[in-house]
């Protein structure tokens, strides 16, 4: 990855690809306002897999304790943007 910080749009696009890969949710369904659990039907174990892939892709750490706070796609985008 380039050293330049990814923009929020880039993070969202990257997350959407990961969510599609892990959970089979169409990537254009993955928008900032969506709740992972309630809207996208993603469970806590798929969230762990998404976190692992997001860590690799964006070079951030997303500990399990943090994961529980990332309720919406927007929460995840903000977390990555802040911590990358």
């Amino acid at each position, binding site marked *: 990855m380039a050293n330049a910080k990814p923009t929020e749009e880039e993070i969202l696009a990257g997350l959407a690809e990961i969510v599609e890969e892990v959970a089979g949710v169409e990537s254009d369904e993955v928008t900032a306002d969506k709740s992972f659990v309630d809207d996208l039907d993603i469970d*806590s*174990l798929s969230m*762990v*897999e998404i*976190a*692992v892939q997001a860590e690799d892709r964006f070079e951030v750490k997303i500990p*399990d304790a943090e994961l529980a706070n990332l309720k919406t796609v927007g929460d995840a985008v903000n977390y990555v943007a802040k911590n990358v």
Partner: protein
Amino acid sequence: MTAIRLSQGAAASRILGIGSTQPERVVTNDELSTIMDTDDQWIRERVGIRERRFGGTEDTVVSMAVEAGSKAIAASGLTPSDVDTVIVANCTTTVPIPNAAAQVADLIGIKAAGGFDLNAACAGFCYALASASDMVRAGSATRVLVIGSEKLTDVVDPVDRSTAIIFADGAGAAVVGPSDEPGIGPVAWGTAGDLAETITMPNGRHIYQEGQAVFRWATTKIAPIALRALELAGLQPSDVDILVPHQANLRIVEAIAKKLRQKGAREDMVVADDIVTSGNTSSASIPMAMDHMRAAGRIHSGDVALLVGFGAGLSYAGQVVICP
């Protein structure tokens, strides 16, 4: 100078036969739902288990080891006196003394066998298999009975839904003996003691685990160990006919299979899914899965199987074997 003479071992080792046993009593998800706040759909989706076996008071680590071990000896076309060493991998005997191996050897009818228990939790069978293989090759044993036997229900809080829905009882065994051609590859093993606290027994009686931490570790760190075992054996992912990961959680099994396929394992590679009807039986799960798949005609003599165990410690070990 006085020189010590060394023993001469076999050129190579292989698995001669396998066997397994489970207690009679089948416990469904619906039955568990009557005693704790859980349900069939949740268990199937998160863990992949449909039913498992729970032992009664007559089923012990020793009794199940004796049955699985006797079957493995018979499947090898041998009698107990052909075996000279017994390793019982287990982590669920409730007292450490006496160990299981000496009693198991005696009850099977193996006189004065070398014997010891080995605790590497759910990686125990792969650790024991590697030890047995090296013993045969070094000449310290001729034929080794390697058993994984566990009565998890003795160390699980029966109403704790985070563990009681996962763990179960059973035993699996293999006889390891000499071979002209290598039938057991080099082991890739290791530990991650920095994560020791993720699977513990805080009250000294019941298992407690940090489920998501263990899930994260298993879905990221174990496929590379399996690939390392292949590399040590000089094989490619595409050579693997059967993948037998420890049956911890079907989602973990599938994640490991997916990673191996991304590295070139075949789509038609058979992936062990014995957890669906057996639950997580710790060190017993790998040989039991192999035995059930053999009985179901899903694996055949000569198939290349990739085994990988992982669990408390944390500990892990994997190797390639040729199915007997």
